[in-house]
């Protein structure tokens, strides 16, 4: 193996890593916001933003930051869900019982199309 071969391998590795970084961080996760079991909002976790939805006790402010989601503000006695902090796993839903709001992260399967 001469120097050129080594260089070639390095270049390919480099390209792969760049590509991996470019395409893999484009995760396609969404969070669904439910009010009494009805989906009221679909939130793209790739976009940092704040959203306000109506809960049972009033406005619930949801924040998305770095692919994670949390309830920033809500009105309740114990503030359990706003104290829960950021969540990024589909196994860990945010549940605001007093406000009847549930936030679940759903991995977007590779779907070609949807039938309504």
């Amino acid at each position: 193996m001469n120097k050129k071969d080594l260089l070639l391998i390095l270049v390919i590795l480099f390209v792969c890593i760049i590509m991996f970084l470019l395409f893999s961080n484009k995760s396609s996760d969404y969070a669904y916001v439910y009010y009494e079991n009805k989906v009221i909002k679909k939130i793209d976790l790739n976009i940092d933003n704040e959203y306000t939805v109506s809960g049972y006790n009033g406005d619930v402010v949801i924040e998305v930051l770095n692919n994670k989601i949390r309830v920033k503000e809500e009105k309740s006695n114990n503030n359990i869900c706003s104290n829960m902090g950021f969540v990024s796993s589909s196994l860990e839903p945010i549940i605001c019982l007093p406000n009847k709001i549930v936030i679940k992260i759903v991995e977007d399967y590779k779907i070609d199309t949807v039938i309504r």
Partner: protein
Amino acid sequence: MKKIIVLFILLLITGCSNKDYNQFNMFFMDTYINIKIYDLKFEDKDKVYNEIYDIYSVYDALCDRYTDYIGVNNVYYLNNVLEDGQSVVIDDRLAEVIAYGLDAYYLTSGKVNIAMGNVLDLWKKYRDSGEGIPSEEEFKNLKSISIFDIILNDNVYTKYNNVKLDLGSYAKGYVTELVADKLEEMGYYSYLINSGGNVKVGNHYSDDKYKIGIENPNEDYLVYKIVSANNTSVVTSGGYKRYYIYDDVKYHHIIDPVTLYPSNFSLGVSVITENSAYADILSTYLFLLPIEEGIYFVNSNDLVEALWYGIDDKVYLSEGYDKYE
């Protein structure tokens, strides 16, 4: 070094590019239609678009029940202009669509009935106003919904007792099938056609299967099942898209020809079979049958599978559904 640059570019092109497809959107037959064609040659693009557009626009006009097209003996003409007991020559293409519907009547023991126009109009009147339901009186005075009042002799159409045609239960599937045939005729075998509740896919664009998500009737955006398949049609019938609520009861648009009321056996049923028109007919049929009877029907038919979303929020699958998991 040159070699490396070439390799670098090749790698970029082959490894990282998304599968190339062209996408056409059209609005016909009251539906937004999305067509993806994979590896469509640039020079074919216009030709393919025009061919598809022509098919949809011709059949849209022929099957239209609400609009008069001058010089076209379409469904509107047959229902509202043609006099009782009179005959008229119709376009061969429309004659074929009607003939398909007449066959469907026997295939579905009378559940899919293209002569239902009069009762559908009655319900539509109430659905549009959102208030009330048809009275006994109105049902009694209803004009014919008998398929035997429609006589089709090749391309000569005759009607009796003011019967009204409605091809809505399968026209979309019928035309989807024609579009798919056209694409294959032009050498394009990898495609995906989605017109609302109606999906048809060809060969896969790589070595895989199309993933067709079926939406939960109770929740927008949420997919409750994914059908993995190639060269097949998936068609959903359900009462959750077009309905109105009166006295706390939901009344949707799929009417049982026997009871003359909307059926309520399931919230939705999806049929998987190769032919899109057939899938369309069967999805309406199964929606009008109790789930157990529907499962029995599908299980005795090798070329058809189906899944139901029950009123109890349970999902019911036909015996051979496994192959689409």
